[in-house]
């Protein structure tokens, strides 16, 4: 569990949820299901050079990641959102790769936390 702290702040998220473990577990489950879709949306938007769509998807992602206290991933999403806002996607690929890595680690961490609990 100690390793998880770098990727996301589980305790922080739990506190936001009023200490409701069940709620956190369900929230993680939905994140595990939704984040691949959101990543795909982002990737496609970046490929198509659709700054508006990048901004929207990154904004959504940022909100979810910040809820989970995933600071680095939140930061990457915020950078992407700003790129979309500025309509300059020139550095988007690198940031997207970083975001994907962060999200993948986050998901792994969630799955292992779930495994250790059951």
């Amino acid at each position, binding site marked *: 569990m100690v390793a998880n702290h770098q990727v996301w702040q589980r305790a922080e998220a739990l506190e936001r949820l009023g200490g409701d473990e069940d*709620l956190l577990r369900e929230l993680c489950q939905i994140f595990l299901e939704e984040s691949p879709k959101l990543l795909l949306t982002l990737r496609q938007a970046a490929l198509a050079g659709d700054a508006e769509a990048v901004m929207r998807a990154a904004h959504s992602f940022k909100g979810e990641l910040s809820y989970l206290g995933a600071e680095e991933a939140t930061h990457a999403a915020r950078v992407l959102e700003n790129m979309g806002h500025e309509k300059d996607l020139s550095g988007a690929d690198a940031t997207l790769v970083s975001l994907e890595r962060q999200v993948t680690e986050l998901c792994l961490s969630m799955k292992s936390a779930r495994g250790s609990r059951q």
Partner: protein
Amino acid sequence: MSQTPPPNEAPVSSPCRGNILLAEDDPIYRWLLQSQLVKWGYRVVAVKNGLEAWEALQAADAPQMAILDWIMPGLDGVELCRRIRATEQGAYRYVLLLTAKHHKEDVVAGLDAGADDYLTKPFNVDELRARVHAGSRILELQAALIKTQGALQFEAAHDRLTGLWNRGAIVDLLQREALRSMRSGQPLGVIVADLDHFKQINDSYGHLAGDAVLCEVSRRLIEAVRSYDYVGRYGGEEFLIVLEECAAADLNATAERVRHHIAECPVDIGTVQVSVTISLGLVCAIADGPDSLVPEDLVRAADSALYCAKANGRNRAETAPIMSQAGRVGA
């Protein structure tokens, strides 16, 4: 385990606190908000974007409270908020905006657009509950105020005993109808009616019996006139009836119907049956240009006719000459 949407309805065990429209495009936040609101006893209408939210708000039984995400495809939270305020009529809508951190200027813009409160993502569920409950309390207070206001408006315009329009209200209505009649050129009928020997009823059977007679007479007056005529209690046992678009022949027929309906069977006041009759003074006014109909003159003319009805034996209607031309009695 797959994602199951939270139910829209509160569990049967918890009381329903009210309906909330939830507009949030992000599936995780939508799920989180919906599941918590339902848990706290709210009924939730959840939509995925601003346009769906706007549509849902057009329904007759649309929720009074709306939780709107700031950034949504189609129509964002602030624009939606502005639309809600611009088209608001009747009951107030309580709007809670969800904003992202690091956007303090958004909060100002949101409140300027008409939001009542805001919540910053990522929010704490306890804060969410407290803010939603606070909004709910305001809506409950408002509902109570509207109810009281309605009751006060009714009391201010109606006679407490009979439920008819009171003197102030019926005079206002006469004024309004006189103006309308002057614009339309349609005849306006006015009747002043007075119960015959009402003092004797009070003296013989007591004031409670007198009140019962007034109530029953009021009921019969309403029954005898057309549904869109106005009947008011002008004084103790005196009534003023305003009849829009009523020509002389119709006015006479209505007055005769009233007279007959009151005299035809005695009023049951519990212990005894009391025979009651009414005398009526009528005037039919036809406007002849602006300022030609003066409400006070109409009442005075109807009053004179009533005096004749009393003098001629009561339980009858007398008509004043048709009025026109700057309030003077004409041919």
